[in-house]
């Protein structure tokens, strides 16, 4: 390649390289501008003009008890889903890091496979498994473990099971990739110096894997804030998400300005959490840590 480019002075070459890089990034920039910046900008404008400049939609949101309470429920469900994903995903990543390559690739295949299956299919599968006379309850009642079927669906348990299942890949991969960057001989050294396995984990492995936890948890939390199919299908009457109320405003009531204001509020909440993450964990760890 270099033989094809005539030699010129260093500065000129540098400029060319910069131009080339810019051209390579240009399609992505244009796509971002067209499909991200402009739509979000227009939503923001729409939330403030109806048709004249007004803050009434924002005021209404915070005055009406429905919206603030549903926002609170949305945040609660998101935090819970992030925690359950961590509780299941972290040990999985930990074991995968130390597993034989064949076992590891088998597990990785399974995790990636769950990406491919459609969200709706996965939700309906959980309904089949968890419902009153579903697989789990039939097993438990015929074995005599429980007398009456357990209620595992159309409540918070159902939502958590469904959401955690969807989020597992998103939490396992960041943690796993951070863990692959940790030198396992550090653990051996700690044990050599007399640390117990527990101490080794808490004082060596766990702190070093924190960036992965942060990245995975942030990703899952931000995704779950906008979720609504899974809570709608697996949840009960109290598992109402803000995105569901936004949809009603858009589709049924044609109140697009209010829907825009609600979207902007949801975006603002996400950005605040992102800012906290950046302040305390450093946002560069998000992509610095993730080497997929």
């Amino acid at each position, binding site marked *: 390649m270099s033989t094809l480019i005539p030699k010129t002075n260093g500065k000129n070459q540098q400029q060319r390289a910069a131009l080339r890089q810019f051209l390579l990034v240009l399609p992505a920039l244009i796509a971002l501008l067209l499909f991200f910046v402009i739509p979000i900008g227009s939503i923001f404008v729409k939330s403030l003009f109806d048709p004249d400049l007004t803050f009434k939609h924002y005021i209404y949101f915070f005055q*009406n*008890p*429905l919206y603030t*309470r*549903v926002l609170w*429920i949305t945040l609660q469900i998101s935090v819970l889903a992030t925690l359950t994903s961590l509780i299941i995903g972290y040990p999985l990543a930990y074991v995968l890091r130390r597993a034989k390559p064949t076992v590891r690739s088998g597990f990785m295949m399974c995790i990636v496979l769950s990406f491919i299956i*459609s969200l709706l299919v996965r939700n*309906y599968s959980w*309904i*089949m498994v968890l*419902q*009153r*006379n*579903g697989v789990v309850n039939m097993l438990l009642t015929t074995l005599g473990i429980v007398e009456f079927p357990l*209620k595992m*669906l*159309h409540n918070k348990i159902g939502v958590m099971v469904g959401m955690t299942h969807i989020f597992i890949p998103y939490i396992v991969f960041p943690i796993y990739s951070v863990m692959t960057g940790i030198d396992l001989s550090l653990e051996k050294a700690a044990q050599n110096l007399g640390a117990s396995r527990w101490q080794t984990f808490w004082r060596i492995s766990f702190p070093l894997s924190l960036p992965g936890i942060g990245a995975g948890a942030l990703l899952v939390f931000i995704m779950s804030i906008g979720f609504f199919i899974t809570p*709608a*299908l697996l949840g*009960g*009457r*109290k598992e*109402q998400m803000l995105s569901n*109320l936004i949809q*009603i405003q*858009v*589709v*049924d*009531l*044609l*109140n*697009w300005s209010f829907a825009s204001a609600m979207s902007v509020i949801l975006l603002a909440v996400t950005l605040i959490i992102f800012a906290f993450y950046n302040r305390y964990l450093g946002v560069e760890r998000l992509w610095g840590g993730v080497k997929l």
Partner: protein
Amino acid sequence: MKKKKEMKRREFIATTGMAVGAALVTSSIGPFVHTTMAKGKTLRICSYGGSYQESQRKAFFEPFADKFGVKIIETSGPDIAKIKAQVDNNAYEWDLADLETRHVARGELENLLEPLDTNVVDLSGIDKKALRKAAVGNIFWTTSLAYNKEALKGRKPASSWADFWDVKNFPGPRALQDQAPFNLEYALIADGVPMDKLYPLDLDRAFKKMGEIREHITVWWKNGAQQIQLLTSAEVNYSSAWNGRVNVAQTKGVPLEIVWEGGCVDLDWWCIPRGNPNKDLAMKFIDFALSAERQGEQMAKYIAYGPTNLGAFKYISDERAKQLPSYPENLKKQFAHNADYWGAKLAEVTERWKLWMIS
């Protein structure tokens, strides 16, 4: 010559391959596109998909395409928000849409629909309930109480909304839809309000009555597939359900029954987005699809909804007619959904409903 043909075949294979691929992709993420080929003009129609749109394809789209040499492009998933976007931007994706009443009422409120040209569309045989300012009814459909006979294990089934509310004599898990329309009407009927005096709804009374049943509703369903799944798998004994879906399940051998008493009869409507340049052809299609013969074929053969053209019953067998929502005996037992009441009240009552749900 031969070579040309060969090319065509190859092209055909390539394009169908692409179309199948595209259909597979789009069917998983959104509306699907189905084209009924014919030369000449094009008509783009959006409807609700599934077995319903299939019945329209066989009874209306294909015969219309053949008779008038029109190419029909189908999409699925209509709502008034998408029509508003098309009208506001003067960029029409649909020439014609099949819409539910609440969307039509909202569309008329915001002047998004084209009034029908009665010189083209013959409305003389159409039931008066199916006529609106800017739309004409296309089917009657019912949302009513349904149950799984097997799940009741020989117990006497509930035969009214009062029975549905009576959890002592008619025990078992129940489901309702997570929305205010229909449910508040059912609550008032259960509380003894006569069906012709429901509107305007006594909201306080309705919510009070809903409070009696709230803890006994184990599932609040969100979409049409759920209601039948819940009943079929006996997850619930009783649920509100759409009669067309119940009928499809019945024909597959699932022991479901629908109670016409206290049902809410509603319509789907043909509408044209206002200002659509292709509206003349769309009007012509509406006239064609409203005919007694076309509706008769649709309901007799393909789907169990009610024809809005009263003449259509002469193409439908008596046995079949008894399963349809607008069969006179069935219609007498039901109330008509008041879309104009809901058009004006939906925003306010929906907020109250959702707040009631989470508290």
